[in-house]
């Protein structure tokens, strides 16, 4: 094909896909290294989730069902890290288990180890298994697990051992973490970090029994928002935006809409569901994976929008030409 001379508009609309791909790699990689906090207004569903997490009682453990693996790491890892930081900084005990994938516990353990190292560097006590949290590993049948938890929490988590500080293994029900817990009703919140339909199972089996919080991928969140609206989910963090919302609130805190605006904390998010809540910023790492990815996401989305505009320019200019001639 002999190409006649092309003007800049035609060149823009005729770029090779490879050029675009290179641009996307360059743009998303460069912004990973830039630290800048983009101002946001957290979505009400993530505000609610954060409000739940920040007001948890310290004497009861939270159940964390971690169902993500490395294939959805881009969104789930940020969510899980934020969840761990919030729980640890608020000194809330938790029990972690997985029901979707045999690989999930290992992935979660890696994150806990990494955050403990971070805490040490910040001069805080690391979170210890047995005393501060329990690790129950993997349960093969998500539906059965939900059913069993509803029927009898003790049986559902029976025969699981964790290592005591003195180096011996003991049944998790002897641990101080589960002190005072008899049934699922004693659990103040169950958070599901997932990239699959495990949350549907939880809503079906445990709805009404325990407060459910959800951290899911961006693809899932449009389908899950109706459950938040109907109250079946007490809070929801969807995709990368959800991660960044959480990190934003960890860094700036939240206040109920009846709480007067504190001028020293101007960026606090406003919570409508709990009008007297007053949460100060967390001490420690707040902005991390979510913040660095979110900037790259902006860059990538901008590139996408520019690409669409560029693609349409030639069409428009051709139409203008046709109208003139």
């Amino acid at each position, binding site marked *: 094909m002999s190409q006649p001379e092309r003007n800049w508009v035609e060149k823009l609309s005729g770029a090779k*896909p490879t050029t675009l791909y290179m641009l996307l790699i360059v743009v998303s990689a460069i912004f990973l290294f830039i630290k800048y906090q983009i101002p946001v207004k957290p979505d009400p569903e993530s505000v609610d989730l954060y409000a739940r997490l920040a007001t948890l009682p310290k004497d009861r453990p939270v159940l964390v069902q971690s169902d993500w693996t490395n294939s959805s790491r881009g969104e789930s890892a940020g969510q899980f890290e934020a969840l761990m930081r919030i729980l640890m900084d608020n000194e809330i005990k938790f029990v972690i288990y997985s029901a979707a994938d045999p690989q999930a516990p290992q992935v979660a353990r890696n994150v806990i180890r990494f955050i403990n190292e971070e805490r040490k560097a910040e001069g805080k006590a690391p979170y210890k298994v047995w005393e501060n949290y329990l690790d129950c590993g993997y349960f093969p049948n998500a539906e059965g697990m939900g059913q*069993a938890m509803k*029927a*009898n929490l003790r*049986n559902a988590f029976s025969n699981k051992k964790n290592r005591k500080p003195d180096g011996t293994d003991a049944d998790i029900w002897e641990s101080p973490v589960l002190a005072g817990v008899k049934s699922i009703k004693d659990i103040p919140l169950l958070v599901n970090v997932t990239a699959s339909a495990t949350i549907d199972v939880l809503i079906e089996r445990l709805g009404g029994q325990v407060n459910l919080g959800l951290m899911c991928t961006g*693809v899932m969140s449009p389908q899950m928002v109706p459950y938040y609206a109907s109250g079946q989910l007490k809070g929801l963090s969807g995709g990368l935006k959800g991660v960044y919302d959480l990190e934003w609130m960890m860094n700036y805190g939240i206040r109920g809409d009846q709480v007067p605006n504190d001028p020293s904390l101007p960026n606090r998010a406003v919570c409508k569901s709990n009008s007297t809540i007053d949460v100060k910023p967390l001490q420690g790492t707040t902005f991390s994976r979510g913040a660095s990815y979110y900037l790259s996401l902006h860059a990538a989305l901008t590139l996408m929008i520019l690409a669409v505009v560029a693609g349409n320019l030639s069409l428009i200019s051709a139409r203008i030409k046709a109208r003139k001639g």
Partner: protein
Amino acid sequence: MQYYDKGWFGVLATVLVVGFILVMIQRAKRHEGNLFIRRIAGLNAIDEAIGRATEMGRPVVMVPGIGGLDAIAVQAINIFAKVCQTAARFATPIKLCCADPAVYAVAQETIRDVYQREGVIERFETDSVQFVSDRQFAFAAGVAGIIQREKVAAAFFLGAFFAESLIFAESANAMGAIQIAGSTQTTQTPFFVAACDYVLIGDEYYAASAYLTREPILIGSLLGQDYSKIFFAALITLGFITVSCERSFTKATGEFKEGKWVALEKERTKGPGDTFMSMWFNPQSIPEAESKVERPQREKNWWEEGGGDAAPAAGGGE
């Protein structure tokens, strides 16, 4: 012994829809009633796509989605059988890539059969219908590789597709192939609409076999489906009329609590749960008194002794 938990209305509606479809199939079998089908652009392009592949001497690739063996996969293979019929006549090479062993078995048998019936069984290569992988992204990588290496001229992506849909569509596009796609996964349809030349949207997918073969049974079934859709539309219309009137002009005087009607102290505005449509669609739970049934007890099996919380793997347990 009762329909409490399903509701009579649900059973009635299901029976009605099943009835529409079966009656229309019977009528069509006797060649009664109209046999019109509206134009579906994607399907008219099949011959064009194969024609191009034949001209260029390059293969046609077909992917029946990554779901298991169900009607979606069967429908895909039905359409592919039609594609292969034309391909067999013109000796156009084909590649059918499966992600499920059961789908592979069906495809293998059906496509071989097509070549047999066309009388050109020698043109059929067993390996042209192949199993690639049942792992989503391994399958995607494999098929993308095949599309690019074989330089396909036409591509058919019909079936249950998930995230991998764009990998196929863009790989085929890079080869300049004509693409005809359709998915019952509504979340993937926009990606096919953006990237492919022809797309079957929604249940155009299920109409395809009727459109291609003009078999009376299929056309009758399609007519039954249309009546079912009209039934749905009528329900919605009836619903918004009655719901609007009820909530505007009447007040709630009582409500169901645990399956029993309890009168309210004070009348109030009707909410979404107070309309009579709601009672059709949301059957009441069983009243407390009727929900307990005492029956004679059988002896425990040996595996049910002890705590008995662990249900046996087969039978017995709930």
